[in-house]
């Protein structure tokens, strides 16, 4: 709203009435919302804690002593989740963008690569990630290939890259296809080759446009590092499970869950912030 000369303008009596009504409504809405929140949360808390099995659940899932005892083991395992995530993420970005660019080519020479890229995206998106992780960790070493690591942490990281790379390539492709053809035409006019147009014109715009869904995939990836537990990587969830198996108490799993939340929430908020900033830029002041 632009600044008006306030001295020359007085709100009418009717406008003042309207404002009073709006204020009253806002107050009532806040009151109703608060009461509703208290009732719903209160009912949940009372409902759960007064369940006949609650004492047993509290002992087996929320035991502070067990949480403290298991914490060193779980946090040590959690370090592996973080390392796997940090290594996998850049690899996935490069792989996904590469596959998407190859799929967007039109040159006849590139046909075999396009076919491979399509096959890759189809196959690796089709296989459940947990299966892929298992096959990579247990199956690949069975081939006894020279020079291939038998360390399941790296093999599992490779499987996550392969699986997420396929998803991310589709996200990138959607971004590339969303860029208006006039951009390509303008690049042509400026004398840029197809490749130059892709690298300098299309991809930067596409990447910015798909940043929120990409970040969303990475939040998902952070949690899927726990899948490496099936190929005996002693990461947070498996460490917690191991403690659970010896002490018959599930609290360490809750500890692992809290650690994962601590890891994902900052990225979740960052994703929201990026999305809002993009809205502000693209809609130039229409959306606040």
């Amino acid at each position, binding site marked *: 709203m632009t600044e008006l000369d306030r001295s020359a303008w007085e709100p009418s009596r009717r406008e003042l009435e309207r404002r009073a009504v709006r204020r009253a409504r806002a107050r009532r809405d806040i009151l109703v919302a608060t009461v509703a929140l208290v009732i719903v949360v209160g009912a949940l808390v*009372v*409902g759960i804690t*007064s*369940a*006949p*099995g609650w004492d*047993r*659940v509290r*002992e*087996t*899932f929320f035991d502070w002593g067990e949480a403290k005892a298991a914490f060193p083991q779980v946090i040590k395992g959690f370090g592996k989740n973080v390392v796997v995530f940090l290594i996998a993420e850049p690899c996935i970005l490069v792989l996904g963008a590469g596959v998407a660019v190859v799929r967007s080519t039109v040159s006849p020479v590139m046909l075999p690569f396009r076919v491979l890229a399509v096959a890759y995206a189809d196959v690796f998106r089709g296989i459940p990630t947990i299966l892929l992780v298992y096959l990579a960790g*247990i199956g690949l*070493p*069975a081939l*006894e290939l020279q020079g291939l690591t*038998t*360390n*399941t942490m790296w093999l599992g990281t490779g499987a996550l890259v392969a699986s997420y790379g396929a998803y991310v390539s589709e996200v990138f492709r959607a971004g590339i296809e969303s860029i208006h053809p006039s951009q390509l035409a303008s690049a042509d006019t400026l004398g840029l080759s197809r490749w130059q147009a892709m690298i300098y014109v299309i991809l930067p715009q596409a990447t910015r446009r798909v940043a929120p869904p990409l970040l969303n995939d990475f939040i998902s990836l952070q949690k899927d590092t726990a899948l490496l*537990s*099936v*190929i*005996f990587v*002693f990461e947070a969830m*498996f460490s917690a*499970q*191991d403690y*659970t*198996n*010896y*002490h*018959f*108490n*599930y609290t360490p799993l809750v500890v692992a869950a809290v650690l994962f939340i601590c890891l994902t929430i900052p990225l979740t908020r960052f994703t929201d912030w990026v999305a809002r900033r993009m809205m502000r830029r693209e809609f130039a002041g229409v959306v606040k």
Partner: protein
Amino acid sequence: MLVALGCAPQDSTTASDTSSQPANQTPADCAQGKTLKDGTLTVATDSPAYDPWFSHNDPSNGKGYESAVAYAVAKQLGFDQSSVKWVKQPFNTSFAPGPKHFDFDINQISITAAREKAVTFSDGYYTAAQALIALEDSPIANVGSLADLKKYKLGAQTGTTSLTALREDVQPDSDPVVFQNTNDAKQALLNHQVDAIAADLPTAFYITAVQIPHSTIVGQFQQQSGTPEQFGMLFSKGNRLVDCVDQALANLKSDGTLDSIEQKWLSQTVSVPVLK
């Protein structure tokens, strides 16, 4: 809240009162009305059910040590073979809070004090020595002492006494590799992802004899720290049937049945070298 109370019956937490039972009561009298379903004894184990504890992954065939023990206990409790019902129960949910779907779970579960906070165990029915399994052509196959094992990469299944023995008695230089189940452990050994895997001796015997060609038992060792752990049957906390099962086990021990079952299914374990 009344609805919640109605659909979630409280676990019975009171320990059974043995003093009120007459001294000459048989296990069968004792078990009257204490099973999940009258006239049926519901017994649980994990799937797959491994040899030599079970046979052909079918607990109901009476073959394999634990299957035979379960049926012997059932007979003592007054249940014939056809009134024993087997259910599948993964180990890592067998101790979950809430009602259980079995009378007892027999699945090579070691009795420990920490675990007894969450469940009730029967008396032990088997004390397992631990053994290390390696491939014949591996250098570790000729190791003769626990101290010489430290430099190798060793692994065992989570939740087992074998893994505890590695962690506390062997203490290898790199943390032991932990497996979800025995099959993963076997595959990792074949893949050279570990130099040796630990398991209880009967399992080790079966693995080397039948499942992994060119594998060998490096040696057996008793758990050094504390008293050796025994396998017990797992009951929901405070289950009243446990006293009847303990009675039945005592009978089977004194009349030699348990020994003969062990002879039949776990007999080859004596000739393995002992690691110290």
